[in-house]
């Protein structure tokens, strides 16, 4: 694959560095790009993802804001409508609750409502993922909400390579894009090309080829699914792992084709399971591969509970390689 060729020429960097590089390169390329958020400048965010950017670009382009999520999202909408390309930093995905009006009633609808005249080229970067012992208000994965709204694009990178390429695409896109980063992944390393590259939206990535079952995964659950595939290998089950990469636009063709080939599919995501993104993806596959499937499409999301603090409780709420492998095995009729 082209990707392989590219990556061999690259360097191993962390997911956090990939984000940082994407921002730095885009800010160098285009003076209209700027960052607005809480503790983004000297602190470089609590996750240190933006470290160093303020040094290169100054406090005028890496702007520390008050703790005003709705306000900063709204300001970015206005800036985007008038010639800038803002990147707003919403520290925890749980605070998405505070920006819904600006993202959904304003950013998402402006282009359409104006008959195509106004555009809102902004990116909202935020986080998802549990198991950090951060409890119910700092552990949610709320990408399903944004995926539901026409006018928004939603990106869920699962590797440093994808993170960098997809973030550059997001910044160059003329629409509001919501970009979710898994907090637990920031320190994971992966090979990333030295030269400029972008990854198109709406193209799922087969992260591992297989023939007995398709594991469709997003973000944090891609790695979990790859590990599950390893476990399944030992039971002689060959799992294909497909990373959707963007829930909107969704690469239905690749997902359906994979399920048609393997005849079985399990969709894994870290958002709450009920009414979550696994429901849409499973429906699409169950419909598109109906005449090929040997078993119902199954789904695994986070347990439908507010994320508990206690480690013994929290660890049960998120799919693990073992639980994914077990469900997959059952689905293949091998228990």
């Amino acid at each position, binding site marked *: 694959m082209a990707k392989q060729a590219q990556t061999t020429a690259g360097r191993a960097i962390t997911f956090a560095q990939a984000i940082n590089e994407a921002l730095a390169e885009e800010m160098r390329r285009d003076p209209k790009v*700027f960052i607005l958020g809480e503790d983004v400048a000297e602190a470089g965010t609590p996750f240190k993802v933006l470290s160093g950017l303020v040094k290169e670009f100054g406090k*005028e*382009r890496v*702007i520390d*804001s*008050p703790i*005003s999520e*709705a*306000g*900063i*999202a*709204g*300001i*970015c*909408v*206005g*800036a*985007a*409508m*008038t*010639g*800038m390309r*803002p990147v707003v930093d919403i520290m925890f995905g749980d605070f998405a609750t505070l920006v819904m*009006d*600006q993202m959904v*009633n*304003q950013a998402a609808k*402006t*282009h*359409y*409502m*104006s*008959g*195509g*005249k*106004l*555009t809102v*080229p902004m990116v909202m970067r935020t986080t998802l993922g549990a198991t950090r012992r951060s409890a119910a208000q700092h552990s949610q994965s709320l990408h399903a909400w944004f995926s539901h709204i*026409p*006018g928004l*694009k939603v990106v869920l990178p699962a590797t440093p390579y994808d993170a960098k390429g997809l973030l550059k695409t997001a910044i160059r896109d*003329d*629409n509001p894009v919501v970009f979710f980063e898994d907090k637990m992944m920031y320190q994971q390393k992966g090979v990333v090309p030295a030269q400029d590259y972008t990854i198109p939206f709406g193209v799922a990535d087969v992260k591992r080829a297989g023939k007995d079952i398709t594991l469709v995964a997003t973000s944090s659950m891609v790695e979990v699914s790859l590990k599950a595939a390893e476990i399944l290998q030992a039971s002689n089950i060959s799992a294909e792992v497909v990373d959707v990469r963007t829930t909107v636009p969704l690469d239905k063709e690749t997902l359906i084709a994979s399920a048609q080939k393997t005849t079985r599919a399990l969709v894994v995501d870290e958002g709450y399971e009920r009414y979550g993104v696994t429901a849409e993806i499973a429906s699409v596959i169950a419909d598109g591969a109906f005449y090929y499937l040997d078993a119902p499409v199954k789904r695994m999301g986070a347990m439908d509970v507010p994320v508990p603090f206690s480690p013994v409780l929290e660890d049960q709420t998120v799919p693990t390689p073992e639980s994914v492998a077990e469900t997959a095995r059952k689905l293949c009729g091998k228990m």
Partner: protein
Amino acid sequence: MVDSDKLLRFYRQMLKIRLFEEQVNQLYLGAKMPGLAHLYIGQEAVAVGVCEALRADDYITSTHRGHGHCLAKGAAIDKMFAELLGKADGYCRGKGGSMHIADQERGNLGANAIVGGSAGIATGAALSAKMRGTDQVAVCFFGEGALGQGLLYECMNMAALWKLPVIYLCENNMYNEYTHYSETTAGTIEGRAQAFGIPTETIEGQDVELVYRTASKLIERARKSDGPSFLLCNTYRFHGHHVGDIDRAYYRPKKEEEEWKERRDPVKLLADKLVRSEIVDRQFLAGTESEIAGEIKSGADFALNAPYPDATEVDQDVYA
């Protein structure tokens, strides 16, 4: 002082809004307009006074009661009517309607059906102007009801911190829909901006000359990078909250309405002044009126005869 040519221009603009809105009401009563509309009648001096003080490339954001702001910023009558009727020739190809007309070419970033929803947009436009190194200014129009929305305070804080060229323009017409503002507004309105160190002015919003002069001063201030300001204009909507709000005695005394219409009608007040100052006579004004009435009529006719958008447009322009 404002020269007489300008005053005459103000008069034309205010009358345009007045007659436009009366026509909107007729379209509604005649069941020619889909949905509802919130008429700006009674508040014309605010939009005109402010927008006449702005440059074409300055920005405004508007509200559900936005036709006046839109016209004052220079929108064309025919394209506005077309939008209100959901026609393809409308400003938004019929997709926005009354509550979402935007007119990008004249810096109107759009009406907004979320009360207070444009505070971020206006403030962001001001930040953008500053970052791009232009001296554009943004005016954020909102009703006193928007003072209930937290977003406004978040944005005023940032505008003050970063000295952004934005003017928060509060039109206090005394009612949040069907509730008197005194029941929803504690303390003072000015205090809401002063808390953030934002200078405020409070004026009679029915006096277009006063609005123009005050707005000019604050706009100049913003243009010179001296930061945001807050302008409170006391005004009144002569009609119901929307075109369908006919029986309103339960929330607003008829006498109050009559008093405003008689003594504080901004169009009448300006007409009287023009005549009193011998700038023009009544006959001249009658001529102006029939001229504008003609424009309004032909604009409405254009819209009534204009085609609807093609059905296939429904899923166009969801994404840029």
